[in-house]
């Protein structure tokens, strides 16, 4: 379910963001802990960090822990921290961005056949089509859309930086198909995915369908909260004839194997585009503005 998947992703982002914030706030929190011994705050990690870095009465916090690791602040007047490590990082990112742009197939996204209109919102995209009064919306997110085997191969290839060995990274996102009939209060929603063995084996002996339906349910029409109390049909133990009817239903509305293949092309291009954009933003963040 993409809505619950996107909730999961948002939660993960919020958790990681919270972790980042708590790491940044370690310094003042540590000081306040020592300054107020009766505070009752128990933060054993931050206390030991303080003990490692502090050499006497608490007056000015000095990050001595990092002093032997090439921490040499660069003064540029912009008010941010710049280290030699940041400079090396920035140079690395510049090279990485150049390399990624070299292998980028096209600066524009590939077109889907079948008259699908693309709407993009960051890493999430919607493909919308109207057919005889029915609206079909396909939603997917390029985050976490690269199968693990490709990520392992890519890490090795990026480490080697060898053009011949570099595997093509393919983004095969889960996607949600919503079919809404005119004046209907509910949409028929299909949660679909690319079976993992198909993605992993690539040109090998594939024996899975190109894409598969995982769950089907009726959901309120429009961009509203996912209704958890709606019955959800799971295809794991579904009658195979019923499953084939559902696949034929989707195929009649343009969601067939051709669509699934083209979606992989589109998602792969989008993911690469977003990755390059992220590297550029990271480079700008790290370097002196």
């Amino acid at each position: 379910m993409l809505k619950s998947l996107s909730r999961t992703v948002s939660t993960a982002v919020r958790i990681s963001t919270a972790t980042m914030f708590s790491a940044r706030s370690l310094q003042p929190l540590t000081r306040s802990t020592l300054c107020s011994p009766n505070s009752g705050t128990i933060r054993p990690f931050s206390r030991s960090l303080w003990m490692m870095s502090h050499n006497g009465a608490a007056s000015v916090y000095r990050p001595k822990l990092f002093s032997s690791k090439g921490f040499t602040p660069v003064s540029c007047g912009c008010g941010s921290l710049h280290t030699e490590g940041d400079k090396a990082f920035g140079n690395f990112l510049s090279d990485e961005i150049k390399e990624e742009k070299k292998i980028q197939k096209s600066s524009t996204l590939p077109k889907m056949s079948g008259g699908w209109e693309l709407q993009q919102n960051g890493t999430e995209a919607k493909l919308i089509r109207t057919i005889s009064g029915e609206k079909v919306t396909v939603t997917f997110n390029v985050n976490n859309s690269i199968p693990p085997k490709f990520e392992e191969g890519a890490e090795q290839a990026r480490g080697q930086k060898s053009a011949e060995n570099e595997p093509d990274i393919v983004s095969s996102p889960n996607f949600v198909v919503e079919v809404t009939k005119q004046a209907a209060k509910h949409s028929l929603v299909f949660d679909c995915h690319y079976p993992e063995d198909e993605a992993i084996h690539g040109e090998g002996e594939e024996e899975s369908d190109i894409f598969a339906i995982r769950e089907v349910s009726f959901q309120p029409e429009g961009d509203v909260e996912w209704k958890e109390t709606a019955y959800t049909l799971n295809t794991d133990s579904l009658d195979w004839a019923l499953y084939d009817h559902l696949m034929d239903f989707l195929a009649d509305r343009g969601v067939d194997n051709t669509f699934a293949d083209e979606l992989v092309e589109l998602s792969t291009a989008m993911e690469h585009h977003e990755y390059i954009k992220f590297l550029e933003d990271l480079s700008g963040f790290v370097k002196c503005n």
Partner: protein
Amino acid sequence: MGVVLRNLQNVVPLRRARLRKDVETLRHILGIQKFDLGVICVDNRKIQRINNIYRKKNMPTDVLSFPFYEELRPGKLPCPIYRDELNLGDIFLGVEYLMKQCQQQSQDLHGILTSVTAHGICHLLGYRHETEEEWKEMLQKESYILNEFNRFTGRQLVPLTKKCSQDG
């Protein structure tokens, strides 16, 4: 036990439910409902690759059969002891190849797919057509199956064996 149906190609639009229904009818006629059967629809590229690997023929074809039981006497159903041996094997349908044939002969694709699947099932049941005698035996079996099928469904399918166009 059932029919595992897969569509691995995007060249030919297929009606999965219709193909499954026809295959189930064939299984009922042959009395093989308790056996698993795989039907995999592929394009020319894939069937050519399989044809090349297993038959050393680097060209697309209409159907390739891979029997689970390789030494069956024609028409004699296996009597497995274990549940996971209730399997007849896999049939790969070269749907792109068959589509071209249909267009040339103005035939219905799904009808052809069913005839070809019947031919493929006969191979899984031990039938061959390498000698004249074998060919006659297989043609007789296929004719029986499709006559029964036509009787149930009102369709008019004809055996593939008379064209002698494939081997499994």
